[in-house]
């Protein structure tokens, strides 16, 4: 995730210049085709479709439930996992391939040891 001096935050990916495979996080070698030093920074799409999900009711201590863990295929080919918000955690309402958008908001009030707040990304059904 990138937060520029001016303008909106965005998600950044690394795309293999040789085979087009998309990665999150910096790397030098493509694990799909093995090409070296071909990675290109790319700004990820802001919209995508819900590929798969789970509604989490039990997790590690201190984490609030329920939440929807969503696997989203962004429109440019990258796949991300994140919380799906703005919809009831009800399997009858959540549809595969429903269009979603990437939104940025405070990281659920979570703070690190120094008391710093964080910004996170979420998926929200597209209006």
């Amino acid at each position, binding site marked *: 995730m990138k937060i520029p001096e001016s303008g909106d935050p965005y998600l950044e990916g690394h795309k293999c210049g040789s085979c087009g*495979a*998309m*990665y*999150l996080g910096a790397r030098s070698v493509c*694990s*799909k085709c093995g090409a070296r030093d071909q990675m290109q920074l790319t700004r990820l799409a802001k919209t995508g479709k819900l*590929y*798969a*999900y*789970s*509604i*989490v*009711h*039990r*997790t*590690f*201590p*201190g*984490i*609030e*439930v329920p*939440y929807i*863990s*969503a*696997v989203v*295929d962004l429109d440019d*080919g990258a*796949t*991300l*996992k*994140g*919380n799906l918000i703005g919809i009831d955690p009800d*399997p009858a309402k959540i549809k*595969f*391939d429903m269009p979603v958008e990437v939104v940025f908001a405070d*990281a*659920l009030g*979570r*703070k*690190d040891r120094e008391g710093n707040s*964080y910004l*996170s*990304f979420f998926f929200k059904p597209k209006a």
Partner: protein
Amino acid sequence: MIDAYVVGVDMIKFGRFPDKTVPQLGAEAALLALDDCGLTIQHMEALYCGNLGQASGMVGQRILQQIGQTGIPVVNVANACATGATAFREAWTAVKAGLYDCVLAIGVEQMGKGLLGGAGGGSGIPKEGLLGSGTMPAVFAEAGMEHSRKYGTTFEQFAKVSVKNHHHSTLNPKAMYQMETPLDVVMNAEMISYPVTKLMCSVNVDGSAAAVICSEKKARELGLMKRAVKVRASVLTSDPWQERDLVMPDVNTCTRLAAKKAYEMAGLGPDDIDLIELHDCFATAEILHYENLGLCADGEAGRMIDTGETALGGRIPVNVSGGLLSKGHPLGATGIANIYEVATHLRGEAGKRQVQGARIGMTHVIGLGSACGIHILEKV
């Protein structure tokens, strides 16, 4: 090429043994396996020991300190939930290579209760529940939902896997649980991570299993061929690149790759297999693996569970031991425990749960991260 045989194999009854140590648990299974073939630790030329929780703790050597320090080479193996299968395969590899004629493989694990892993600490803030979920139930729930999106597989169909496997374990005295769980009980159990309820999660238990593997020459020399089970195929794969790898561990592709190689190595196909112990770490996973192992065409796994084809007495019984869901899943022991189960059926010694006429069986495990281990065994 040298043929390798399982001549002795056994497991302890899975359960919770907080007062025992990991080496003590491993030693129990090792002695059972040695007794199963009437051999002693002095016959063993090498030990391959699988354990995850104490992967840096020299568990194999500590087991020998319990049952006999003969100075043999010990290899300690860790490969997630494929740990036991990997230890077994290393033992098999050494015999196939002609390096040794008689070796011991042990898988052992002592588990806590509850979810594996943690919410993640270190610097920054926990990512669990912020960037989706990384819990094992959620990961396998999502893998199941991928099957749902493709083929319309329902929560009820996934739940039926648990009904079946819990029923099977009522016939297995070495399983953690011997209790029936009807469909409504499974579906109404605590929802952990939709569509996975508590009864659709494998049971964290302590356990151990061990196998003695011999070359054919040695097995004949020792007069052990009568109950010997031939290893027709041993395959290990890792996960080939997949487009959703980074957020969605892929248990399908590495299984399909391993199954293809295993059938090729054995010169057999899915129709030749009489029973399978596969990696039902969550009920959703079993459905995926029906297709991954070629038991049915893609998209037909839901029908297979509906029609009872994979239940004891069905066309291809799956997890008659009760599986990880009900026998229990001591991570490092599982891969050898399922070899024990299949070998026991092939020997015709499985009692009430015996798959009648079983001649060829398959075992399958997945270690997330990922590793897939498949073995095909035959009673010759």
